[in-house]
């Protein structure tokens, strides 16, 4: 398990990195972020890089900040940054803290980065799910300048994105949910720390006990995380009760096109879709009750 030979480059700025990537991308130069996916893949020789352009020495790329009504997450922000719910305003900070705890294991979360997760685009990436569900924006930089991609256009297949090989992901912007919104997340995997077999994130706005807006995203089910408009539509205008949740789960199970792998069938994942959505919605409903009755 030794990687094939490669050269190593430590850029002095994002622009320097972009130029270097422009020069080397065709030959197989790659960005190195946390290395938690890339390094093992190189060791197994399922990934080859002629050159690694290591962003880690660049300053100022690892602290999230609020700009306008968005949370800006620079690419090197480590997963573990969100262990602390104060890394983002409520309720987003709590949401990210809850989700972060499900990413891999503690040591991996110290190194793995938000931008690396988005670029790697694993079907079970929690950060891809969050970005898709909240309709975030992915910001890229190449030698030609910056470019923005809407979350829904980001991933186009398993571990595949619309990023060009010579573009660097610089940051991700997440719109801040309403302070009154309640959210729920549920992830199912076989062992703690594994990639999810299925997970759901929902953000619900209620007015006068009726659901006025709903976001429901799923991950680990299809080849990339996405929102499920059919499931969301099943909730709008209804009371936040068991019947509404069941309707959303039903709609989701009909709408998804699940993956299949060595140990898990599409049928299992379809059924799991209903379960994770129901459980995420139930978590959101409990939060709604807590908001309505803080005692």
């Amino acid at each position: 398990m030794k990687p094939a030979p490669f050269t190593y480059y430590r850029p002095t700025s994002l622009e320097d990195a972009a130029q270097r990537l422009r020069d080397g991308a065709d030959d197989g130069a790659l960005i190195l972020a946390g290395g938690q996916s890339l390094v093992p893949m190189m060791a197994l020789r399922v990934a080859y890089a002629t050159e690694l352009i290591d962003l880690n020495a660049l300053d100022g790329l690892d602290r999230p900040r609020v700009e306008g009504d968005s949370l800006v997450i620079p690419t090197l922000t480590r997963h573990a940054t969100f262990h602390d719910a104060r890394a983002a305003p409520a309720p987003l900070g709590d949401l990210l803290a809850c989700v972060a705890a499900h990413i891999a294991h503690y040591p991996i979360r110290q190194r793995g980065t938000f931008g690396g997760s988005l670029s790697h685009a694993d079907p079970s990436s929690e950060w891809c799910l969050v970005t898709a569900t909240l309709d975030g924006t992915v910001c890229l930089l190449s030698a030609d300048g910056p470019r923005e991609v809407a979350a829904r256009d980001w991933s186009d297949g398993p571990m595949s994105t619309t990023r060009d090989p010579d573009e660097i992901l610089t940051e991700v912007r997440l719109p801040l949910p309403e302070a009154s919104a309640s959210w729920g997340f549920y992830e199912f995997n076989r062992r703690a720390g594994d990639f999810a077999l299925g997970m759901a994130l929902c953000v619900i706005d209620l007015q006068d006990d009726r659901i006025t807006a709903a976001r429901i995203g799923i991950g680990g089910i299809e080849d990339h995380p996405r929102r499920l408009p059919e499931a969301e539509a099943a909730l709008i205008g209804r009371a936040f009760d068991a019947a509404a949740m069941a309707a959303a789960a039903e709609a989701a199970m009909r709408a998804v096109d699940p993956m299949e792998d060595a140990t898990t069938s599409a049928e299992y994942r379809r059924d799991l879709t209903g379960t994770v959505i129901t459980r995420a919605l139930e978590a959101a409903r409990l939060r709604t009750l807590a908001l309505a009755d803080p005692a």
Partner: protein
Amino acid sequence: MTQSNAPLVGQSVPRREDRALVSGKGRFLDDIASPGGLHAAFLRSPYAHARIGTADLEEVRAMPGVVAVYTARDLAALLPGGQRLVTGLPSSSIAFALDRPILPEHETVYVGEALAMVVAETRAEAEDAAEMIDLDLDPLEPVADLENAARHDAPKAHAHLPHNRLARFGFSYGDIAAAFDGAPHVMSRRFRIDRGGAHSMEGRGVLAAPDAMTGRLSVWSSTQTPHALKRHICTLLARDDAEVEVTAPDLGGAFGPKLVTYPEEIAVAAAAQALGRPVRWVEDRREHFLAACQEREQLWTVEMALEADGRIRGLRGTLLHDHGAWTARGLNVPYASGMMLPLMYEVPAYDLDIIVTVTNKTPVTPVRGAGQPQATYVMERLLDAGARACGIDRAEIRRRNLVTPDRMPCERPLKLRSGEPVILDSGDYPRTQATALEGIGWHGFEDRRREARARGKRLGLGLANYVEGTGRGPYETVTIRVARDGRIKVNTGAAAMGQGVGTALAQIVAEHLGRDPSTIDLTLGDTREPYGFGGFNSRQTVVAGASADAAARVVRRKVLQVAAHLLQMPEENLDIAADLVIVAGSNSGEGLSLAEIAAASEGLPGYRLPGIDTPGLQATERVLIEGMAFANGCLAAEVEVDEATGAVHVARLFLAHDCGRMVNPQMVDGQILGGLAHGLGNALYEKMCFDDQAQPLTASLADYLLVTSAEMPVIEIAHTESPSPLNALGVKGVGESGVIPTAAAIASAVEHALEDLGIEISEAPISVQALHAAIRAARPGGPE
């Protein structure tokens, strides 16, 4: 120094191994420096079955850092003693020999089989070159499925074989036809147990270093059996016994797969000798997944005949056993399964037909448990089914059938592979079960279960009884010598692999020689001693322990004889306390030191030996052990099943356990906990998946689910000590104990949790997907 009279054997003396290991001072294979050393990497077969053509190696040989490249033909010149490893145990039931080649020349028979070896200045360069070898491989149809493999029209796992049925044998006693004829209940079931690995933290590895001055070859290997490795190297490289030294350094676990000698070990030794430089190969995890031996895949078609009251009338059926692609150890695993199935219950008639089948998969040798977990699983599943059929409690049907303590030692109508009868030596099985039931709260659980169900939760309790055959003979050598400086030197063929055998032997020896384990220096896995075996089959505390105990008694006698002579006192009045011989009972701190006694024992020119007939304070013992000591236990498990996902959460395990006299209770617990973790993997997580071309699909730790600390439930252990009459210490082994009952007990608990749905568990591991499908099928409407 221990002044109290409490025996050392039986105390939780801290493990002498741990200080070095936990402070980073352990010396594992890859820690051993070899200045000027080279590194090997292997080209491994990408196909499960293929004809091997030729390769043009010129370009590869010219790559940076490459020193040598070997295919089968190149290696043949370095192996004057033969090119096959004969590691299988003999058996008259075997139809054809399948000894594996060091490197195959014409045909490869499993994914991961080493086909060529590159030796280079660095491991990375060796891997770069191995990747560039363009070896012609012409794929052949593989045998991927155990059930198909046994059919007459199946493809052949080796092109030249007449068929894939390596062996057919069985166990049979009693009047089986009569047992089934008119039986009130007959349970007919099929069970499937899947293939998995052992996954020691440290993989295999070998370092061979030739000495230009002496011509000797020093070999270090992460192996359980350094003696066997030495024998194979001497044979295949045609070297004299005295010219080869094999050492097993610290092992980061072994659990079975480091039992047999492997092709890589021979290839590396041969290359080092040929190149005149040290050569090292350290297995990586992917190689471990592909090429380290695995176990457990078995298909059972069995029937149990019962009386109306649940007493067993008879047991019969067929066991189809996956042997893998080569014979690396022989028939010991299926043999153990067949022997184990009826062993601890009163089964008046038994007939099992065992078919051992070659497949195009990694060779099979024991993995912790070695056939016993499968048999336990099958027997315990049948008993659960039987309890339901008879309408009695699952614990009660077991109680009615268990061998009772008044029958101990109890000869069974079964034979060990040596031909000796199987004798259950000691133990109180019904009481062990009662302890487990009490511990888990068997009675009174119904209320908890009902109350949980009302909250939408499905709880279940399960149990499984088991015996563990331990202490496989014939012997292990132990030599004890009091050195001139008074230190007690213990040398043995017994091998350490992390289990603490050094601590146990030091306790046993110190018991007779001063009762202070810190005065003892151990050399384990010592191949300078010509007769030895190593670690497997939960044997060393029993077998090496017996020799250590005997040798220590002899040396003690000699120490006291010399001291009696020097002090002019009767021997009976003397005792050894730490490194002094003292007047028994005295605590003045005065006495004759072991160093003085050792010096005197050597004798003086022209004088008589001081009170002894042979010089020196030394003894070598090889106590012969014929029977096996059977440890036993009962595991009770509490689970919660998530009906919507098929997930099983194991909440609690309670193990009632009896491994005879415990040398070191804390180490016994450690062995049990590790075994239970592995058993939990077998119950719910660990499964090597292959596609229909026998390509492994789960060859990484991301895909093959090992149990982590997060999955470990609350575990409680209760010990009983029924001394074994088979050895002076009364000990039994414990190394495989925890793993044997776990899959069975958890399956039992899952069935209980789903009782109202009538779901039976017949596969191990239970996957979330399979359980989910079963729940779905049982409730067409699906979970609410």
